[in-house]
């Protein structure tokens, strides 16, 4: 019988606690985001590959730290709350489901458009040049169209159960994950 596959121990726990505490310090955060492999070695004695942080995490960080995107998200939230008051006044899961069923598609599509309008320029350039989409993506609007196809699928799979499921950092992450596949092509596909 195989040994239990558990990656436990005080070393990991200490690293995890220490990392979360250090990330509260702006200087550490900037250093880590600029040179994750170097910080990993200095602070945590971890030898990491050059690409220590995934492209998805980097893009998620860029978006969450982008003032313009945050402002757009806040304005968007106020707009949908005034446009679809049933979503914010729903007292039960049933009421929310009723309110959301008619609107969730439109809301998530608009959100995808907002994300694509705030992507870093270098990512947009890479998407335009990617082998998957070369010749098909000419502008940010084209990225939104590609994402919309994806979002339409997500809406079917992930029905919101609470208001926070409808749109959240997880929605941004879903879109970021998809963008990474669009940029680099599917990883793992065998020819």
């Amino acid at each position: 019988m195989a040994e239990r596959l558990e990656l436990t121990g005080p070393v990991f726990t200490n690293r995890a606690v220490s990392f979360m505490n250090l990330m509260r310090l702006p200087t550490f955060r900037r250093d880590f985001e600029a040179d994750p492999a170097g910080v990993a070695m200095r602070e945590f004695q971890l030898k990491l590959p050059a690409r220590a942080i995934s492209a998805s995490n980097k893009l998620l960080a860029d978006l969450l730290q982008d003032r313009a995107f945050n402002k757009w998200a806040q304005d968007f939230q106020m707009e949908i709350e005034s446009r679809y008051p049933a979503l914010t006044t729903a007292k039960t899961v049933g009421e929310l489901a009723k309110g959301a069923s008619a609107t969730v598609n439109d809301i998530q599509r608009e959100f995808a458009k907002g994300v694509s309008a705030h992507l870093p320029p270098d990512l947009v350039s890479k998407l335009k040049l990617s082998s998957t989409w070369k010749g098909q993506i000419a502008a940010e609007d084209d990225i939104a169209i590609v994402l919309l196809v994806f979002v339409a699928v997500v809406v079917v799979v992930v029905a919101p159960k609470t208001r926070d499921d409808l749109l959240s950092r997880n929605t941004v992450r879903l879109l970021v994950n998809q963008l990474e596949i669009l940029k680099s092509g599917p990883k793992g596909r065998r020819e």
Partner: protein
Amino acid sequence: MNILDPLPDPKVLSLLLTLQCTAECRHCGTMSGPRVKGRLHADIARRLIREAGNLSYDSVVFTGGEPTLYGVELYDLIEFASSLSLPTRIVTNAHWAKNRERANTVLQRFATAGLREINFSTGDEHARFVPISNIIWGIRAALDAAIPAAVMVEVVSDRSITKKGLLSDPTFCSLIAPEEADQIIFSESPWMPLDEKHIERYPLGLATNAENIGRRLGCDSVINTTTVMADGRVMACCGLGTRSIPELEIGHIPKDSLQDLRQRAEGDFLKRWIRNEGPERILQWAAEKNPAIEWENLYAHRCQACKRVYTDPLVRAEILQHYEEKILDVLYSEWLLHGYQPQYDQHRFHAHEQLGKV
């Protein structure tokens, strides 16, 4: 909560009060059935609920097996959780909803006890033992009792019971108005063989591959759900498949406290990796290291992919050899999702705008 606010860390206590069930579905995730005995002592369940209340858990789920076979103490436990302001949910196959009168009697008792949500499990497997009409009577009674209802329908490639079919069932249409049907949450979920080598047939595009993996987020069950089995064993996720993955067993009641158990689960990097990225991405990552690992178009249910992570020697070897390179990436992701607080808010936006500083 605002759209870009840090995500909360959900905490759910799931009590498998009994593993006895009126149904005997193939590939049952908890290996329940009519001949499986054992029940969680009500005093222990009560102690756990009290502790969950003290630790600000988000909800208590009563499941099994078939939790209604637990008897009248089920209502007492729901009432006790409600008295501590803990929302409660029950997962049932509706075997008790044989007609309108019986369904109403049970649902009224649940409503009086304070039940906040009822989930009905159905599909081709469940329907071999519980007629679909029971589900419809159950939904009708839940609507009458103003208890939010959700219906989970099993998905395999060739099936006779679907959400669409249920919504167009003549009995359903005669009992439930379209605007009432809108209030029911339907979830069609892949039916999972417990054996990771048994590859089920699913509708096209449902099994994970390199093209659709972008739709997979982390597992929202591992660590976040603490499941206590009828025999006192404690699992670090919702229970599906946990009986066949020893690593997901993290302790035993009454020896361990909920707080200890949660900390124990958080102390395992692999569980945090699964919570953050999901088992499918770990398989993809392992396959990049070792191309002999095949993972695409095999698993639609992530619990089956999880079992593969834990049992395939090739996958285990890559994890053990290379996991350290993922540690900071996973912790960074946790921080981005749950910890990062933007240093500006709406009021500041407007103040800065007025000063022309944005």
